[in-house]
């Protein structure tokens, strides 16, 4: 029997497949289609201290093998997430869930993370220091090792649950940012968030996205993500969650060989709501094909 179990920061997952934040809501839409308890876990929509509408529309642009989004962290704010969304989430998902946290100041990250840390259904805190959509916001923390380290340190002090720092790919040396987070006590690193992109409507000579730019994701970014996951996994000693363009069981194996302990799936859920279910069902056969008995044995296989 193919063993798909992995351990992420002390919590065992039935399999490494995790829908990525912002592409799975709070699970309800997918729970209508299949039992989402088959997932390793999932990361719910980025939560901020205050409610946010996000950016003006259009927020979505089609790209070759991918898409640009500029949702801008739309969410009802941490108070409503806890009082309204998590009770509904618990009805459809029995496992520990990953809470994704966004923010615009260190205090905000800390306050929001502390509130979510206290929720029994939350297993991990994924701190998004990388969302490229907010003017003068999250971006700045994710692009400098010092700022990334400061957020990590402050959040770690305020919470008990494992802290996973989610990194932006829009930097020159992602491994040194990961290392800075590790040195301040991060329990894990997840990457990559979306790559800054832009599309232009030829007929109107204007950007397709109202906010001009947005985050590029989907199959097209997979090779960039694999390279960055490998660079980070070689540098740090904490678990790495790999994501960016993952859309098949093969992609999961490749991410894990690059150094990922678990794998998040983003845009693929939007175009095929059954994407994660199919990946999980395909995993055993793909493992057999490559003579893998246990997924644990391939983590970082490519790295020295």
């Amino acid at each position, binding site marked *: 029997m193919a063993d798909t179990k992995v351990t992420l920061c002390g919590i065992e997952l039935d399999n490494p497949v995790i829908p990525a934040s912002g592409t*799975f809501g709070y699970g309800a839409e997918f729970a209508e*289609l299949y039992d989402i308890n088959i997932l390793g876990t999932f990361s719910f929509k980025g939560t901020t201290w205050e409610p946010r509408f*996000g950016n003006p529309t259009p927020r*979505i642009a089609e790209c070759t093998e991918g898409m640009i989004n500029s949702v801008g962290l739309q969410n009802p704010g941490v108070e409503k997430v806890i009082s309204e969304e998590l009770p509904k989430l618990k009805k459809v998902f029995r496992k520990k869930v990953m809470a994704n946290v966004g923010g615009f100041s260190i205090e905000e990250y800390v306050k929001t993370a502390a509130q979510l840390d206290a929720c029994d259904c939350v297993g991990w805190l994924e701190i998004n220091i990388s969302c490229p959509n907010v003017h003068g916001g999250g971006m700045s923390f994710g692009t400098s090792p010092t700022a990334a380290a400061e957020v990590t340190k402050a959040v770690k002090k305020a919470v008990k649950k494992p802290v996973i720092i989610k990194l932006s790919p829009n930097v020159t040396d992602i491994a040194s940012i990961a290392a800075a987070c590790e040195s301040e006590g991060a329990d894990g690193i997840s990457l990559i968030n979306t790559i800054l992109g832009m599309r232009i409507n030829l007929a109107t000579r204007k950007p397709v996205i109202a906010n001009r730019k947005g985050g590029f994701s989907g199959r097209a970014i997979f090779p960039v993500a694999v390279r960055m996951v490998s660079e980070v996994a070689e540098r740090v000693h904490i678990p790495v969650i790999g994501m960016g363009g993952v859309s098949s069981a093969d992609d999961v194996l490749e991410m894990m060989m690059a150094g990922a302990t678990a794998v998040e799936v983003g845009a693929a*859920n*939007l*175009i095929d*709501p059954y994407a994660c279910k199919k990946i999980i069902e395909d995993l055993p056969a793909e493992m057999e094909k490559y003579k893998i008995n246990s997924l644990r044995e391939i983590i970082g296989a490519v790295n020295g």
Partner: protein
Amino acid sequence: MKQGIFEITENKPLTQNVMRMRLIGDTSACIRSGQFINIKIEGLFLRRPISVCDLNKDELTIIYKVVGKGTEVMRRKSVGDKLDVLTGLGNGYDLSPSGDKPLLIGGGVGVPPLYLLARQLMERGKDVTVILGFNTAKEVFYEKEFGDLGAKTILVTADGSVGKKGFVTDHMDLDYSYFYTCGPEPMLKAVYKRSVTSGQFSFEERMGCGFGACMGCSCKTVTGYKRICKDGPVLCKEEILWQTQK
């Protein structure tokens, strides 16, 4: 919502750029007029949302205008080809407040979803009037089909080449109990201003998923933030906030 494989049973032009497609498959998730389907198109990443125009047991009818890459691929599809489709998306029209004399106002490719709505209202014994607005005679479709349902049909073209001349709102001074409308946003705004009763509007927005997961299609309303794909595409007159509706 359901995902299903549908077989094309018809794909024929109604005008130079507007096509009618009929599809056979599991339509059990389609419960209201005004809902839409989201079609996967090979070679393109995002699905394409198109309103349901008619529904007969396991057969769906859609009418689409060829405007870009996705709809061009759809145009080239043949009978017997298969499509991967998400069905039963969106809230759809609520028939209950229609009253006895509902008015339906459609513009261009906003006309299709009103067809199933008109049929359902006729089946309930309502006295239905439909105003169909197009730019010019060559672009007109479905005037006869609405007439065949037994609805009073008023055809309007901007250039007056057929039917009455002007915009749909120039011909709205009728006696009606409630209204339903779908069409380009400037038309919806004009209908909003001109209408004298309550009514329902169907909106469009660029979509990531079409089923409520990505927040790509949000708008602000009087009753809070709504996703056009899940909480819409139909909004009531009283909840619309135009200034932020783009």
